[in-house]
């Protein structure tokens, strides 16, 4: 019962994030300008920053949608199905695409620690979700064998 409440909270949180992302999609330019006025010039080209944020937002959005699908699967008591394995694979691909984008960003545009940290974080998410997908596949095989034992 407790597990179900936690999963429902996580699922609601992801929905909230998706809504926030949709809002951010339209307000990013204004937010960046406002943030820049607030903190002074950070040394980075603002146009490139906006382009970069939009580019990395795409894999992130896909990642969020896949995470929502995962939560729904778990809530439906179907944890180790084909769709969760696929979702985890897509999550790892998106994370690695983000890692790639952040690497380019760190090397060319932002030579600061924040971009580097996000690059490493994206890489970690990619690795973890890849390992999880392999685990889920193995778990599905075991569950299948158990289900088909008469």
């Amino acid at each position, binding site marked *: 019962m407790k597990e179900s409440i936690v999963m429902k909270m996580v699922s609601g949180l992801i929905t909230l994030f998706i809504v926030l992302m949709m809002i951010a999609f339209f307000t990013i330019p204004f937010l960046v300008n406002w943030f820049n006025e607030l903190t002074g010039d950070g040394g980075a080209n603002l146009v490139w920053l906006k382009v970069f944020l939009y580019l990395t937002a795409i894999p992130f959005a896909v990642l969020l949608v896949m995470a929502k699908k995962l939560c729904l699967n778990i809530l439906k008591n179907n944890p180790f199905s084909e769709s969760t394995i696929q979702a985890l694979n897509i999550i790892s691909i998106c994370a690695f695409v983000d890692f790639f984008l952040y690497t380019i960003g760190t090397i060319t545009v932002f030579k600061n620690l924040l971009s580097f940290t996000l690059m490493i974080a994206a890489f970690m998410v990619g690795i973890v979700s890849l390992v999880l997908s392999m685990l889920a596949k193995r778990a599905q095989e075991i569950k*299948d*064998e158990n289900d*088909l*034992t*008469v």
Partner: protein
Amino acid sequence: MPIIVNVDVMLAKRKMSSSELAEKVGITQANLSILKNNKAKAIRFSTLEALCIALDCQPADILEYVPEKSN
């Protein structure tokens, strides 16, 4: 699958229905159909024992090994 389950033959011999057999053995009708359609991956000894008791036969009457033909 190399192991074939011949429950239908024994059911016909003992003039029993599938649902009756499932009830006697203590498995669901769904599991019995998994067994009959050779979709089962494993069978518990307790289930095999219950099958033999219900059908009054030996395991060899129910299970048959057919080697896979590989070209």
